[in-house]
């Protein structure tokens, strides 16, 4: 048995090291799930294609929630959409991050007094990065992604842990706005 530097580490330290290694790879290959609910989604095509070329940050689109790392919520969320968004968020495998686009996810934006649209996204699911603007510039969107990578590097992108810890609080908010989170429609019965 070699007595290396690693064998003297406690289990916690080794776990932390592995997480750091994992975070390094995760932040350099973020698969994003685009939940294009509102008009901010129009900023994604220039960000993804050759104009700003998201691929150089290692980001790419992913088709299913279970394989994605980042959930992009681009714009306003009606109550009907919020239900499906919570379903989607809970299906994603951990660690998972959420980026909220535009003023609608921050404080309701131009829909602040609408009966159909929620005002603050982080009441219902944890949000790691907000990109402000109505709509945000594509530069701002790219900057938001870089910010997210920095947060993952400095271990501050802990929204998904917060969702575990304060699940009761999130659930209470979801129930206050939605009545019931379960979807009852033709396709779920």
């Amino acid at each position, binding site marked *: 048995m070699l007595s290396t530097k690693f064998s003297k580490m406690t289990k916690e330290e080794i776990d932390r090291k592995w997480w750091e290694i994992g975070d390094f790879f995760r932040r350099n290959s973020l698969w994003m799930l685009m939940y294009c609910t509102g008009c901010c989604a129009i900023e994604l095509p220039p960000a993804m294609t050759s104009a700003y070329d998201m691929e150089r940050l290692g980001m790419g689109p992913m088709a299913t929630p279970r394989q994605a790392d980042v959930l992009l919520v681009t714009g306003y969320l009606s109550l009907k959409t919020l239900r499906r968004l919570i379903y989607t968020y809970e299906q994603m495998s951990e660690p998972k991050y959420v980026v909220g686009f535009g003023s609608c996810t921050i*404080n309701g934006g131009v829909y602040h007094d609408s009966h159909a649209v929620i005002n603050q996204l982080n009441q219902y699911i944890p949000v790691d990065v907000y990109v402000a603007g109505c709509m945000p510039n594509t530069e701002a969107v790219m900057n938001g992604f870089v910010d997210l990578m920095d947060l993952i590097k400095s271990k501050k992108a802990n929204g998904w842990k917060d969702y575990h810890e304060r699940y009761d609080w999130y659930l209470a908010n979801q129930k206050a706005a939605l009545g019931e989170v379960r979807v*009852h429609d033709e396709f779920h019965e």
Partner: protein
Amino acid sequence: MTNSMNNVNYVTNLVENSFEILKTEVVNKNQVSFIVEKATVHGLLTFLKTAGWIQLSYLSAVDWIEENQLELVYIVFNWEKPVYIQVRTRLDREHPEMASILPIYPGCQYYERETHEFFGIKFPGNPNHEKQLILEEWDDMPPLLKDFDPRAYSDRKFAKREYSNDFVNLNGQESKQKKREERRAYIKEVRKGGKK
């Protein structure tokens, strides 16, 4: 027919000869509106469907709160003659009810559900008209009626973000002129490669 105005005249003559129309309005060369009694609607729509207006394009309502009435609007379309026909009728606002047109236009299924949800109009004859469609688990009065207050509902239901300051005061800041000049001097110096 080459002249499209002829289409409108053709429709107006066709309908006015066979039905009692309260008011005819030509919206433009592609659209005519007929205001009829509630009892005439089904007969008129059946007649129009036989005459070629086979597609129900839209069905919705208008809230005339001062007259205490709700107006139903059916819009039908013909693929041979480019004329939209609106059939409008007024309902009582307190207990709005209208027999479903499901046997005439089966496509009205979802429109009737939507109209029931947003205006509270009942459509007996459509077995699904009370099923929720867009507003799930709705707990208030129908939201597109004029006496519904969306802001009060939003304030009651959704948490608002609180800000400590309403505004940022940009007056009375220090002048940045000196910093700018320093930066310019630095840039000049760098351009020379650091040589004085």
